[in-house]
């Protein structure tokens, strides 16, 4: 299990390599990237993430433990970047490998939903017009 908060750009391929095992036939990767437009259409210059790093890593371990409890064959990675990110860069990567695809999809979806809900990570959207806004995840609503 690769569970990390990182400051440098995320290399999805190396995460997938770390997770993939010869017994895994299906691998599902979710990758959240910085969009060029906010939900309200405003041009985005970039994002800034910060985290309570120790608590965020602990939440990743808790999520991984829950996945393991229900889907012991799944191999999981959760990596979230913090600091300043530009449009198009990867903010978060969740990779789940499993012998069969149903578990890989279920684990990846569960992990990203759980991360958004319970990992102490914060996102500031920085707009091209100069404004900066701390955004909250809308939990229990339609997922973003």
């Amino acid at each position, binding site marked *: 299990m690769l569970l990390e908060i990182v400051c440098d750009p995320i290399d999805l391929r190396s995460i997938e390599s770390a997770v993939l095992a010869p017994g895994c036939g299906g691998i599902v990767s979710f990758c959240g990237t910085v969009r060029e437009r906010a939900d309200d259409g405003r041009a985005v210059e970039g994002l800034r993430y910060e985290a*309570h790093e120790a*608590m965020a890593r602990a939440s990743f371990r808790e999520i991984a433990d829950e996945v393991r409890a229900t889907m012991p064959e799944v191999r999981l990675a959760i990596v979230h970047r913090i600091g300043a990110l530009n449009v198009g860069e990867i903010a*978060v990567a969740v990779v789940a490998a499993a012998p069969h695809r149903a578990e890989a999809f279920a684990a990846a979806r569960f992990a990203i939903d759980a991360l958004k809900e319970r990992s*102490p990570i*914060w*996102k500031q959207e920085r707009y091209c017009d100069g404004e900066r806004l*701390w955004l909250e995840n809308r939990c229990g609503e339609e997922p973003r």
Partner: protein
Amino acid sequence: MPVVRLVAFARLRELLGEPRAIALPEGAKVGDLWETLVREEPRVTALARGLRFARNEALCDAETPLREGDEISLLPPFGGG
């Protein structure tokens, strides 16, 4: 007079500053720390909605007593992912 380390995040960090030590009266609880901060910087009042506290990296509530050397984190609603 327990001295605790205050760590705030996101908008609260912008208003309250980087991590620092803060002294509170004997018997003070996490909620008393918050009240102290509201007096110090009234603009944090608007950020009480959805706020969570952690003591030494474990979620806690306003009734949790403060002890010397505790690290108290102020966690606004999360925005990761």
